[in-house]
């Protein structure tokens, strides 16, 4: 039941976010819009509750995790992205590459954690996640400038696993 309610709230927020314009309620929505949003959210919740709560874990409802996630996005992640883009720009202009696919073991346990880390890796310097070993959660990373043949996790993604552990585990 609580799963259904959370899905309902999330889809209602998404709907209201997309339809905000002039109206009676708070100056942003018309009454018709809100009623339609509630009806559609109920329908969506019936369909999507099972998808959203496959493992029945509620740890992401903790607001402290969202705040850490925001800090992570604005701080270390954005800084790594700036470095990544200057790095790729340098390689586009000079054409110096030394690519290879290496394996790292970030030792994360949850699906959300590994997804977050894989997406972070793709957007940060010189690395692109190619494949995942679903039993051990090892990631295979395409590295554009291979410096060592046996890299540690810190060589590839710096402090990201610690941050992801704080956010998603």
């Amino acid at each position, binding site marked *: 039941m609580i799963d259904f309610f959370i899905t309902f709230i999330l889809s209602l927020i998404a709907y209201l976010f997309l339809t905000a314009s002039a109206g009676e309620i708070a100056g942003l929505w018309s009454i018709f819009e809100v009623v339609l949003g509630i009806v559609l959210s109920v329908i969506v919740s019936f369909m999507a509750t099972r998808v959203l709560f496959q493992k029945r874990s509620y740890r992401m409802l903790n607001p402290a995790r969202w705040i850490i996630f925001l800090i992570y996005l604005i701080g270390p992640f954005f800084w790594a992205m700036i470095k990544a*883009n200057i790095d*790729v720009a340098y390689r586009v202009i000079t054409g110096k590459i030394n*690519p290879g696919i290496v394996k790292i073991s970030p030792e994360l346990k949850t699906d959300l954690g590994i997804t977050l880390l894989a997406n972070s890796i793709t957007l940060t310097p010189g690395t692109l996640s190619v494949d995942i070993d679903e039993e051990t959660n090892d990631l295979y990373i395409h590295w554009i400038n291979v410096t060592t043949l046996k890299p540690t996790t810190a060589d590839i993604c710096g402090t990201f696993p610690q941050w992801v552990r704080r956010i998603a585990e």
Partner: protein
Amino acid sequence: MGILLIVLYIFLTIGIIFNCLGSIGLLRFPDVYTRLHASTKNTTFGSIFTCLAVIIFSFYQLHLTQDSKFLVLALHTFIALVCLLVTNPTGAHAISRAAHRSGVMPKQAVIDQLKEAKLK
């Protein structure tokens, strides 16, 4: 407005430069994986800055005209930005995984541990 306009132009310029570099990288790099590096990272970064420029512009217009359609513009741009940030790396991951599975090997590679893992 003067400073805001300058910031806006700087953001637009950064965005266009990086999107442009992404396209050049697409032409210059030798294989799928390195091309994905250029196209994912640079276009995401460039799009973040063009979106920020649109958001700044719409908030300025909102302040000027009090017309709520500019708030809508800002909100929708923000949603587009979030979707880009989530879907761009996911798409790149899907493409590179599919490429490796169908036998496209990275060119000039010094090491390929995924291939070694599959052979075992």
